Structures are given as structure tokens and as C-alpha cells.
């Protein structure tokens, strides 16, 4: 196992370099001049513009720019945004909100998805099963922004149960509605995945044997059916953490959450290459680590898996 984790971490190095290179290239190729927007409507004086260009290495060829950026990263320096703010500071304000939001969404999707999936799987063909299948299909089919605006309008404005937007008020209650909207689609998938796994395991031979041992129904369900059904589900949920963090752009936009999604959107609009690349690079690292954790977790959940 130790060898396996080591090898996976080594594999992360080319992934990291490749991802940053492609990102940097894409931002470099983006139309528009980042310096042009910095001095307001009148535009910068030529001397100021050229000073800014050399400060941010914009006068250098692409490869030099990229290598200078990577050099900075390796020494722990994310560089400076064109606004003059240190990028590390931008990251430090944006990430905590998004992590909070993503973890809350993850908890919602796990709890509701697994519980509803378990009940639906045990009573396959019943009323509950039919209802959640239709609802989950609806959730998957309707775009997130529609769900977001509808929830905002009904729950936030009409019923006034929860705050409409988040903004600076990053409390649990404020984050609850965006977290539900963010979790929606994944929740539907977790539910369906759990349902299928439970239905399959419920008729497995070892479950019958467990019943024949004299176990109560509750113990058979929790210890044998649910435990075995969770193997694919937990793998899915784990891999979903990265998706939730990166995929929050729409949700964060609707609910005005000052997280990674919003910041990233603004940075793209402004053509702030280093900021975009830095934010996304961290997302890439999150993806790599969560995927590794999921693989390790998978081996712990299923003793038949051996990594060599």
C-alpha cells in the first residue's frame, strides 16, 4: 500500500505540470490586454503600461512567463494579481467559503441520498421507490441555475425561511440553501447508485445466509446489505468533493457566495492569468488528493482490493 501511494504521488507531478501548462497557455491565448483595463476608461500612459508589463513579465515570451510562474509556485509564491493584491491572499479569502459550502453539500448528498436510496432499494417497485425515481430524474434534468433561482425565489423571497444570498454572512443557515442546490444533481446520483446496489445486495446469497444465522432484519440490513452497498457509493461521494468545489461557479453566482467560483469568474473576465491559474491549480491538487484518498478508502472498504 505504501508503495502504491508513493507511486500515485509521483504520477501527480506530470499531471500537475501538464495542468498548469495548459491553463497558462489558455489564459495567455485569451483575447484582450490585461493591462488595458487597469487604468480605468482613459487607458494607461504608455510609460505606465510598459512598466506594468515588465513588472508582470508580460513582455516576455510565453515559455519564460510560464517557467517564472512555476518557479514562483515552487518557492511558495503565487505571485501578485494585477490589482496589486497577493494571489495567496485571494486564495485565502475565497477557499474557506467554498470548502465550507462543498462539505455541507457533500454531507447533504450523502445523508439524504443514502437514506432515500436504501429505502427505495429495499422496497423496490413500491410507491416511495417510484416517487424518488421520478423526483431524482427531474433534479438531474433541470439545470442548476433554474433550481437555484426557483429555490431562491420560493424559499428565500416568498416564504422567507432562509436568507436569499450569502455575501459576507457566511453562516450555516445562509449556506444551507446554496448547499442543497449545489448537492442536488449529485444527490440524485447517490440515491440511484445506492438504490441499485441495495437492491442487488438484498438478494445476494450471503444476505440469505446472514438471515439464516438468526440475525434480526435490522441487523441484516445495516450490517450486511448497507455496508456492502456503500462501497461504490462512498467512492462516488469521495470523487465528488472536487467536482462540488470546482462546479460551484453557477451556484456561487446565484447566491452571491464570495468563494472560488465567483473569484474565478471575475478573474477570467479581467484576464488575470496568474490568478486564474493559481485558483485552478489548487482545484487540480484537490482533485488529485481526493482521488487518491478515494482509492485508498476503497481498499479499506473492500478487503478484496489489493494495490500493488
Amino acid at each position, binding site marked *: 500500500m505504501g*508503495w502504491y501511494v508513493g507511486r500515485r504521488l509521483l504520477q501527480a507531478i506530470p499531471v500537475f505540470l501538464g495542468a498548469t501548462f495548459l491553463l497558462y497557455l489558455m489564459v495567455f491565448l485569451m483575447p484582450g490586454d490585461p493591462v488595458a483595463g487597469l487604468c480605468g476608461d482613459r487607458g494607461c500612459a504608455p510609460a505606465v503600461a510598459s512598466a506594468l508589463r515588465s513588472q508582470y513579465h508580460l513582455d516576455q515570451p510565453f515559455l519564460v512567463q510560464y517557467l517564472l510562474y512555476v518557479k514562483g509556485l515552487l518557492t511558495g509564491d503565487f505571485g501578485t494579481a494585477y490589482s496589486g493584491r497577493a494571489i495567496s491572499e485571494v486564495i485565502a479569502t475565497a477557499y474557506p467559503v467554498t470548502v465550507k459550502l462543498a462539505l455541507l453539500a457533500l454531507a447533504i448528498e450523502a445523508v439524504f441520498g443514502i437514506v432515500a436510496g436504501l429505502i427505495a432499494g429495499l422496497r423496490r417497485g413500491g410507491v416511495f421507490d417510484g416517487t424518488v425515481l421520478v423526483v431524482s430524474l427531474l433534479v438531474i434534468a433541470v439545470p442548476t441555475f433554474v433550481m437555484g433561482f426557483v429555490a431562491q425565489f420560493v424559499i428565500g423571497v416568498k416564504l422567507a425561511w432562509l436568507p436569499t444570498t450569502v455575501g459576507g454572512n457566511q453562516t450555516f443557515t445562509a449556506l444551507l440553501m446554496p448547499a442543497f442546490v449545489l448537492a442536488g444533481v449529485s444527490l440524485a446520483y447517490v440515491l440511484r447508485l445506492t438504490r441499485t446496489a441495495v437492491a442487488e445486495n438484498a*438478494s445476494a446469497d*450471503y444476505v440469505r*445466509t446472514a*438471515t*439464516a*444465522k*438468526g440475525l*434480526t432484519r435490522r441487523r441484516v440490513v445495516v450490517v450486511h446489505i448497507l455496508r456492502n452497498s456503500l462501497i461504490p457509493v462512498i467512492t462516488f461521494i469521495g470523487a465528488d468533493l472536487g467536482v462540488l468545489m470546482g462546479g460551484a461557479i453557477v451556484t456561487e453566482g446565484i447566491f452571491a457566495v464570495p468563494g472560488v467560483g465567483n473569484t474565478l469568474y471575475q478573474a477570467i473576465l479581467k484576464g488575470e492569468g496568474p490568478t486564474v491559474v493559481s485558483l485552478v491549480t489548487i482545484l487540480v491538487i484537490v482533485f488529485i488528493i481526493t482521488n487518491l484518498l478515494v482509492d485508498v478508502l476503497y481498499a479499506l472498504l473492500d478487503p478484496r482490493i489489493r494495490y500493488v
Partner: protein
Amino acid sequence: MMTTHPAPVPADPSAEAPLLRIRDLHVTFTSRTSQVHAVRGADLTIYPGQTVAIVGESGSGKSTTAHAIIDLLPGGGKVTGGSIEFDGEDLTKAPPRRFVRLRGSQIGLVPQDPMSNLNPVYRIGSQVREALRANGIDVSRSSYRALVAELGEDAVADTPDARLYLGSAERRALLACLAGRGIETAAVADKLVVGFTTRVEVAILLRGMGLDDAEALAERFVTGTGARDRVAGLLAEAGLPDAERRARQFPHEFSGGMRQRTLIAIALAARPTLLIADEPTSALDVTVQRQILDHLGVLTRELGTAVLFITHDLGLAAERAEHLVVMYQGKVVESGPSLDILANPAHPYTRRLVASAPSLAYQRIQVAKTTGEDAAEAPASTDGERSAERPGVLQVSELTKVFEIRGSRPGRATQFTAVDDVSFTLRRGTTLALVGESGSGKSTVANMVLGLVKPTAGRIVFDDVDTSGLSRRELFAFRRRVQPVFQDPYGSLDPMYSIYRIIEEPLRTHRVGTKAEREARVRELLDKVALPASTMRRYPNELSGGQLQRVAVARALALNPEVVVCDEAVSALDVLVQAQVLDLLAQLQSELTLSYLFITHDLAVVRQIADEVAVMQTGRIVEHATTNAVFDTPQTDYTRQLLDAIPGGKLNLGH
């Protein structure tokens, strides 16, 4: 340990109240579209301590009857009539909660397939412990029913403390104490089994060694076990070696036989009075099957457990049970003492079953005699002569296959020799059987002969050409002449293909004939394997196992091969179907001068189909001779073991 004869029937069973009495049982499976009456009027009685076997083919309702007893019918199944009286209580009227209490503690179940019946994510020990905990068993003391009886007048045995188990720490302390006195402990160590040996047994053991203070020692060192030691004891009792360490392993680290022993330990953990054994060894090799059934027989007899034994093998049933119940299409068609039924089967179905039981068959199917053709050319002489005079079509010499097994890290790979220096010759128009247990390398040989696996060393010469030197195109042509039939017809035929497409595919791949010609050929092939032409529009899931295996044979014959490699081709089939497919193979052989390389673990089948037998053990051929020679005068111990393990082989039916 166990004799091969059934234990004597209680002198007058009617004097005792029956443990289980099933009367006119009806079970119906209801789905949205149909209703199936799986059991229609089954009657069955089991007395305490008696072993009764239900015999029947798949679909006869034997397993359904057994599952109805403990309310484990799969979805849609319901008891629709009759009564199941267990210990005087009608279970058809019992609520679900009652069954939770009955299961495990009163009625145990040993399921059919050991591979799928243990939860893969839990350790062996915890799955056994679960059975103890669910039934509230006192793990420190024995509830060995027979213990008191066995020890007779020994009054000590009757106190609860005498039935305390030896724990693992105590065992070490006791052995150290004995060693301190200068006593040789090696011999006694084997008899002190953690969680299994009781205080009174320890006392008797020590007394036998001539120790004066045996009782005092036993009292000092045997004070009862914890659950973990008791689990090890149960596993040891079921015949699992090194049980303490094994209990910490996972099911996938166990062989089929070891898993079945675990399932037996689970079923007997709470000392039920009735054990339902549902085809407990059908998935295992014959030698393992024998060991496990012997052991199960001894255990249940010592514990006084009644056994309901379910099997499709008549020979096995007759050997293991005093009383037989034959089921056919959901009905009990015949029941009575085992040997009576074997000797004088009354019902036509039972007669067919007795006639086709492979374990009771005694000679090769002689087609030439019955069809009357070619009688002069292929004389029904002894098989040895038959094969010796024929030219060889396939020569295998010094064949070796070494597999590399990945280690925990690079450079730690180990080598495993699956096939080791195997040589044989398959003669044209004859059958060579390659016999061995799982892991003996027989299937690897088959795969190499088929050109699916590359040999590490050695030569396979087909029709005087070494197959290792074949180009891609030559290999393609070679495959046309050597065709396989595999074990599992459900798995080896594409479920998305129609039967027509399955049989036609090799013809199309090899560009044989026009579309019309190919269709005619498929019709002809279906006719050859005795299936109606209408079968070709159907799909694999619509056919039974036997019909599918006929399709597999038709597919194999489509290209007019010279050699057919049958890898366990009939092992998954019911006896009657098995007999039909074997007849078909024999008939096709004489019609088309086919040569069969017949891979099987079942010596009983070999006798019916093979001219020559090669016995394989751990990758090597240990014995190779004509079928009669192998059966009549086996040369190695291993072959004798295999022969002894044929169920019912010892029953004398006056053939």
C-alpha cells in the same frame, strides 16, 4: 472416521415424535406476469437425529421446500397450502419474529455455493461470532448434547463447569505447566483445541497420561473461553486447520472447501436440532466433497442433529442419508429407505434417475453397437484396443506453463508452474480425458491446446505441424479445426446474440458459404444436436442449461473441426441432462470421427465417455492409461483417492 454406509435407522421411529413433518406443502411464486407452482403437495417427515435426503433435478422444488421451512423463500414465493410442523409447532402460521428466533438456534442452514455465501467484506471470525451473538449463546460453555451421553456414568460431566471450554491463554499456561514437569507436550498439544476441548475432556486426557492431579489441573487451567476462542473452536470443529489464525482472514483468502467448512461452523454454532444442507458440496471437487461430507456426518451424529440433505446426486444421497425423498416437478414421487429405492425404484422418474446417475454408471457409452453402423470398422471392443490402433491427431510433448505472480512491489514477483512437463497423444476418433481437481492445471492445458494461452515450453503438434510456429493466418485456419465447448453455457454464449447468430458466427468469421448455405448449415447442426429448427430465433436466456450446452456443441461443430476440447462441458448440468449431452457427444463422435480432449474433475463422467484417462495433480500427469485400467487397477494413491471419492461408488446395486 465415518463409514460409507448409512447409519442404522432408529429401531422404531414412530415411537418418537417427529422433529419435522411437512404435509401437502404448496409453494407458489407470483410475479407480475405469471404464477409458478414450484411445490405442489410435498410430504416429508424427519425424526430427531435422522438424516433425510431430498433428491431431484433443478426446478424440482427441492430447494424451495427447504427454504419454505425457515421462511427464506426468495421474493414472490409464498406457502399457499399445507403445513410445516416443527417440534409440534405449525410454522406456516408463525409470524416473522418467530422465525428470527428459530433460525440458527433451532434450524441451521448450510447453503449451496460457498463462494457467494460469505460476506466478502467481513473477516471469517466475525461472521462466525455473529451467529453466536445473534442466538445468545454462552460462549464459555459447551452445549454439546452428546457430551454427557458419550462420557456415560462419569458424573463429573454433568456439572455445568465440566463443560467449560479451554481458552487460548489457558492452553499456553497449561502446556507450560506440563513442560515444567518435564512432560513431552507435543502429542497432547494437538488434542487441546482452543474453544473446543472442555474441562472434563482435559481431565480425561491428563488422566490418560498418568497424572494424579488431572482433575485439579483441569479445574485450574480450564475456566471458560471468550467469544474469539470459541469461534476458533467452532472452526476447528468444522475441520478448518489452524483455525485461530484463519479466523482473522477474509473469505477471498479461503478456498471453496475452507469456505464451506466455515459455513458449516456457522450453521452449527448455536447447536440447532435440524440442519438443512442445501447441495452443500456441489460446487466442490470430489475429494474435498468427500472430506467435508464425512466430517459433517460425524459432527451431526455426535451432536444429535437431524439433517435435511438436498442434492441432485442420487448416489450421494443414498450414501449419506437413511431415507430418500425423490421430488419431480414439485411433487414427491417416491420416498423410503435409501437402499430400497436404489434397488427397486418404483416411479418411472426414479428409474431414469437411477439409470443415468453417473456415479453408478459402469461402462463407456457404446454407440456403434446401438446404431448398428460401422460395426465392423469401429468394433465395440475394449477401449484400449480401440484407441491404440488409431493414428494420433494431436501430440503434446513436455508442455510447461509458468505464470508470473505480481508481488507486493516490483521485483518481488514469484513464479507459479501451472503445467509441468505434460505429454500425451490424442488419437483420431477417440476421447482422452484429462482428470484432476481444481488447480491441477488441466484447464491451462486446454487453453494451450486451443491456442488461447502461449506455452512456456514444450510442443503441441496438431496433424504433424507444430502449432507454436504458426503465422496469424495459419493460426486462424488451425482454430477452425480445433473447437472448444466450455463449462458454463450461460457465461460462454453471448446473451445478446440469437441462437442462429451464435451458431452462424464461426461460419461467417471463416467466410464459409453464402447466406442461404449458412442458414441451411445452422438448421442441419441444430438437427444434429436434437434441437428443433425453431430454436434459432430464440435467445440464450430462453433456453435451459442442457439446451444451451447443445447449442454450444452445435457452435463448436459448425466448422467441421477434427478435435473438440470439452472443458468441464457437462459439469454444470443435472444428471439426466448430463447423460443426454454425453450420449450426444458419443454419437457425434462415431458419426463424424471427432476426437475429444475431455477436461473434467468428475471421474464418474470419465467412465462413460473416455477411452484413455490422464490424471493430473499439481500440473503433472501422474497416471495415464486406458479407462478400464485406471478404474480397475489404479496405479497411484492419488487416483485411488479420486476413485474413492466418487459418491455412491461403493454402493452395490448388482450391475
